[in-house]
């Protein structure tokens, strides 16, 4: 069974790129446009991993991570967040809220794939 990734980002171009990269590598991708949408989608179908941006309207990434970790179904599900280099404090906060790993923007397709593989294989 293909692994499912929930991709949460308010930027359509980012979502496009992520979807192309991951589905090309055999992952199923479910998309959400902001934190609230992401949380709703996470509650309706099982996912193997969440990939989320931090900066989004209608519930930002940090809040989403906290909400996800509060769900009983999300124990042990890896959450990767996207961060820019200058966001050091955000990185620590995100980890403390329950994120598993991160990818620094901007990134190449192969960097995205290598982190995803590292985290869910």
């Amino acid at each position: 069974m293909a692994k499912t990734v929930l991709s949460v980002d308010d930027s359509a171009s980012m979502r496009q790129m992520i979807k192309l990269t991951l589905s090309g590598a055999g992952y199923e991708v479910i998309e959400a446009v902001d934190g609230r949408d992401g949380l709703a989608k996470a509650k309706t179908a099982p996912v193997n991993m969440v990939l989320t941006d931090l900066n989004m309207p209608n519930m930002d990434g940090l809040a989403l991570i906290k909400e996800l970790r509060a769900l009983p179904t999300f124990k042990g599900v890896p959450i990767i967040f996207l961060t820019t280099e200058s966001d050091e404090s955000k990185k620590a906060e995100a980890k403390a809220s329950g994120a598993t790993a991160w990818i620094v923007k901007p990134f190449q397709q192969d960097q995205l794939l290598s982190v995803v593989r590292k985290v869910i294989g």
Partner: protein
Amino acid sequence: MTAADPSAIFREEAAELLITLEEALLGLESTPGDKDLVDTAFRALHTIKGSGAMFGFEAVAGFTHHLENAFDMVRKGEFALNSDLVGMALGALDHIQTLIEHPESASSADGDAILAKVAAVLGKPATAARSDTRPVAPVQEQSDKAIWRIRFRLAGNSLVMGTNPLLLLDELRELGECTVVALTGDIPALEVMDPTACYMGWDAVLTTDRPKSKIEDVFIFVMDDAQISIERILDEDPRLGEILVGRGDVPATAVIAANEQIQRLGAILVKGGVVAEDKIKAALAEQKHVKAEIGKVQAQAQANSIRVPAERLDSLMDQVGELVIAQARLKQLVSGMGDSPIKSLAEEIERLSNGLRDTTMGIRTVPIGTLFSRFKRLVRDISQELGKDVDLVTSGEETELDKTVIERLNDPLVHIVRNSMDHGIETPDDRVKAGKVRQGHLHLSAVHSGAQVYIRIRDDGRGLDRDRIRAKAVENGLIAADAKVGDQDLYQMIFAPGFSTAKEVTSLSGRGVGMDVVRRTIESLRGSVEVDSFPGHGTEITLHLPLTLAIIDGLLIRVGLGHYVIPLSAVEECVELTAADDQPNSGRSFLNIRGDLVPFIRLRETFQTAVPLELYQKVVIVAVGDRRIGLVVDQVIGEHQTVIKSLSKLHADVHSFSGATILGDGSVALIIDVGAVTQTGRLPEIDKEAS
């Protein structure tokens, strides 16, 4: 640009974001204190910068970065927004738009001016467009093997947070030979245990030639809250004595004698009162322990392979083959079902059976390169022995063959190579006299073709002497003195007993290595030998070996009521048989494929199909090497995973088919031997009947 082009989507997105930004800025002109608007503006700039950098709009990203910073400061309350800044931001917005839509006409001077103004307003110098906070990757250091001791304990909540320690261990294993010990001592009793918590640590000993940074990379996401230590255990420094002996400066005996005079380090230190004896004992204990660990690691490495009786592997392969056939049947049955749990289960089973198939096929096969590599030495030795200069070139080393087949090929190949060097390749002087290069060449190659492997031994020697062979054949009573024999058949005579000049075949049990034993060995592997010779230029011997255990991709075709399989690797294309080409013809027929004349045969005729034709016929163009032929069939059904079942000994003389397979509905399809077909231009059995 297609819709799927991310940069096109970025442009659209950026255009929308710029509109949003403009609205926010205009709103801020009247209400500069509005936090939401500031947020919106910041977010828009942040996204444009981020996505810009992602999709190659470097200039946009670099420029927008400063504005993003400015609005970040406002957002954090470090700076109070004023109309000046808003005005500048609006000007900047226009610049961004130009950069995105008409990058050629954007002026960096304009951009710099705007940024300077922004910096002035903020009271800060414009910071560098991209502060490189990413550390420069360290220069890759040592690349020699070292043994590392890696210890890690993850935070208690790491499993809940999504970390999978097994993946970490897998990553370590990818770096080299790794022994892992799980530390379970801290796991509490079941009643008090929290099943989601991580109580474990792991100790690993890793032998790798990668630098320490690569090991650290494995733990990059858990480094912050895990306890990790990575240390090198053993440094393999060569010792002075060894170096001296190796360079021939000092005889080994002298080093040994000198060593005996040296006191052990421990003894010296204790004597000098530098350290207490028990501390030496403890240090020695650690030394012993580490050596034992290393010994363990090495012993473990050796224990990682198992001997298995070949029959067990045979029966495993058979069962896997049956499974693949059954799975194909299942697939056929569920194909009409539409979405259902059974269908997805059938897909899962397909995936698993493919994996199993690949793994088992990989167990017994070995690349022929293992055989070829021995020949370099052999050729060198024989060259010296015979006083000839021969260069051996090999290709196709990665071609995989069943291990037992490779073992049995050794002797025949050795004999063929010997023959070629002995009788084929001339002495350097003779070669020069004949106008050739001094050095003779021997080319060993292996290539897959569908269900067969072709192993070729080619030399550029003097070639076979037709007359001498003929004379000997007559002498041995193999042919009548006046019989007309074609070249191919004549060359095959060298495999007859009595022709071998190197060593004799002693008795019927066949010990000894004459060319006839070569042929018998190959035939016992259900293969065949072909000889081609170019008088004066060389000889080429080709061994055709069927893959005994194979599951190949085949093309399923129908001729009349019968189904046949053509190995897909030999298929070049399928074309329609037009009425023009379909003239009834008893001689050779040819198709014009993009200027090349390709001969074709009608399988309906070959198989004497009586069933009336209802569809347009197709021609499957197959190729082996540079020989092509078209096979006219009634219907091309499609790709079919073909489990090759060898034909039994009863059919050993049948050369048109290299095997058979069982289809999803239980019927049998014969696999056409494309090598034979392309060779002769027709199915061999037809040839025999014709003559």
